[in-house]
């Protein structure tokens, strides 16, 4: 009998409080697109229900919500940054609602409403299509870092959930990779729910490297179901579940010059740009190379590629420098 109790205690010990950082992509150009299968206000209902479910799971579960908007990234909850006088009045007690839920729901809804009402900042063309996922991930990681520091016992188990609809923004490649590696170092899984649209390659890699879940729901209108069954279980419960994994992630590299997938490529020893053929000068960092390796295939390719290399894509501005 005692052995059963101790084993249960041991299990409970591992089953710690969870800190869930939710990054919501609020890109209005995608959500309000005529072909969007789910509008933002409806999706928010699903997401709020999911947040409440997370908070209800354990008394000391914690939550942070970050909006990844077009050209901006902001904390929706908790917001200590700008205590507005209006919000205090709204969070007065409602006898029919659990107070914790109400505070979160109000904060998220008012925050998103404020973001959408904001006079749109001057945006560049390339900002339009995508949201600031890299910024939101950075904010989330800083928040988790602080939370882990202030939690002396080391019991908080953090994880990040990204709900996204926007396509990848190629200029975000390096910042996203930096986020992924810091998350991996700190053992923070990044779960990704791509609600619709084509696969987000960077985030797919994020989930793969940090051992999180990457999923696209079959039907976006059933978002809540996907969230509840796949993303609600914490890391402790996941060891008992068989959750949908992702297929092999393609980590093959694409060259910076033609975006071709390469098996064997040439890498600039200074800036690590990948090229499919030899060129005497690195188009990224303008380094002149010492000599041409005596490879017949490289020579042949080099002659061909020399003419068709007009642009000089940098690792930052080029689209998908890595996998396809």
């Amino acid at each position, binding site marked *: 009998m005692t052995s059963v109790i101790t084993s249960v205690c041991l299990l409970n010990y591992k089953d710690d409080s969870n800190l869930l950082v939710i990054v919501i992509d609020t890109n209005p150009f995608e959500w309000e697109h005529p072909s969007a299968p789910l509008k933002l206000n409806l999706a928010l209902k699903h997401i709020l229900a999911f947040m409440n479910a997370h908070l209800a799971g354990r008394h000391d579960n914690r939550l942070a919500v970050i909006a990844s908007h077009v050209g901006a990234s902001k904390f929706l909850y908790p917001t200590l940054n700008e205590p507005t006088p209006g919000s205090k009045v709204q969070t007065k007690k409602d006898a029919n609602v659990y107070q914790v839920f109400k505070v979160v729901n109000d904060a998220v809804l008012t925050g998103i409403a404020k973001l959408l009402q904001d006079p749109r900042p001057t945006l560049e063309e390339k900002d339009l299509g995508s949201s600031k996922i890299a910024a939101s991930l950075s904010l989330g990681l800083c928040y988790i870092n602080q939370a882990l520091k202030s939690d002396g016992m080391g019991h908080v188990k953090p994880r990040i959930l990204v709900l996204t609809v926007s396509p990848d923004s190629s200029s975000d490649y*390096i910042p996203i990779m930096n986020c992924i590696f810091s998350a991996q170092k700190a053992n923070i899984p990044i779960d990704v729910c791509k609600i619709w649209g084509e696969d987000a390659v960077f985030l797919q890699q994020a989930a793969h490297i940090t051992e999180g879940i990457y999923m696209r729901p079959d039907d976006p209108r059933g978002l809540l179901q996907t969230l509840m069954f796949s993303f609600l279980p914490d890391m402790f419960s996941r060891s008992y579940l068989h959750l949908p994994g992702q297929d092999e992630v393609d980590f093959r590299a694409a060259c910076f010059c033609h975006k071709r997938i390469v098996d064997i490529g040439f890498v600039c020893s200074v800036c690590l740009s990948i090229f499919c053929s030899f060129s005497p000068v690195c188009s990224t960092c303008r380094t002149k190379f010492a000599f041409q390796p005596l490879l017949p295939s490289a020579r042949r390719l080099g002659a061909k590629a020399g003419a068709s290399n007009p642009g000089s894509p940098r690792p930052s*501005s080029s689209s998908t420098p890595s996998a396809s």
Partner: protein
Amino acid sequence: MGKHTEQREQKAEATTFMATNGRRQVEKDDDDFVDVDDSSLQTNQANYAWEEEYKRSWDVLQEDEHGSLAGVVNSLQKAAKRKRQLRDTDPIQRGIIRHLFILIDLSNAMQEKDLRPSRLSLTFTYLEAFIAEYFDQNPISQIGLIGTKDGLAEKLTELSGNPTDHIKALKMKKFMETGGEPSLQNALELARNSLIHVPAHGSREILVIMGSLTTTDPGNIHDTIARLMQDNIRASVIALAAEVQVLKFLSTQTKGTFGVAMNEGHYRDLLFEVIPPTAITTTKASANLVQMGFPARCNDSAATLCACHGKLTLGGYKCPQCGSKLCDIPTECDICNLTLVSSPLLARSYHHLFPVENFVEVPWKDAAMTTACFSCQKTFLSPHKVSVQLQSTTDAGRYQCKLCEKTFCTDCDVFIHDVLHNCPGCLSQPRRRAGGVIA
């Protein structure tokens, strides 16, 4: 370990270089006899571990005018957190593909207990952490370990890009045995012989960890140093005992760094300073395009032999050039010598090329403008609640990015520069170039 007697004849009469000045940073000419000025020693705050007085940790704490210790404790904690050198954030060429040999002194001097538990065991503990961090930051670089004792040098591990090999070697008991005198020249020559075969695009580096004040060399060490300079090898030195003239000469001649570990923490700092890739100083056209393979992961239904260990395995990476199967990347194909990497590994090095700008400290007089850290939402200590007297001794604990003008707390500042390498404020802005990337 008296087995090497027959080999000892290769070293000629022992040329011994004595430690000269016992104090770090004392600049004197080579030939000068240096007498250590005792009066300057006492003014120097940081003493060597062995000459430290008996420490009373409670002496450091002093009450403020309200009789409270909280403010002092806070500022002490902050100072410790903030203890990081401001990095050079200029976009310069850095040698990202590195080849580093670590020369470890395994002589009797390493048994000294001035660094606790002993110089040797502390070195091995730190080296384990160092190797893990080194490969984390320099994923396509290589390390080799060389030990020197009884006047001989021995390779503990060959140059390789696999951290587990080195860490395994460090854990082996037989390498922990010490004996006799170290031989700096033998060790340097051994490292040089391996490094000259390294392709020119990679940097060649040697890190010497020396506990002894003497060295037993077969010939003239200045010849070896000249050869190192000629082969473009950079040698950095961490001395555990005191500043030794020849070691300092070695590091200055080869453009390396030199440091004397004063205590355990300082030793660790010196060691970890080697981890970020160094700027390329030579003007020689050493850059080149390196041929690399990007193997796809394969999962076979039946187990096949891997080329690296000769073991039956199911999964692995297939070399795109010769088709042999290898267990793990990054590595060099054992069959055709092609460097095999994956694109995320290359991406891991990008942050050295686009570092985050240093944040500037916000003085107390401007502190009222911000109430909370931008990235972690922690509220700052309001300047109105801190007495003027305390303000003069502490800093405001907020740091500002010059580009986006967002303010961060100490924890986030350290985290952003040491781990994340992204400025969340710059990334959150509409048009500002993200994380130092110039589009």
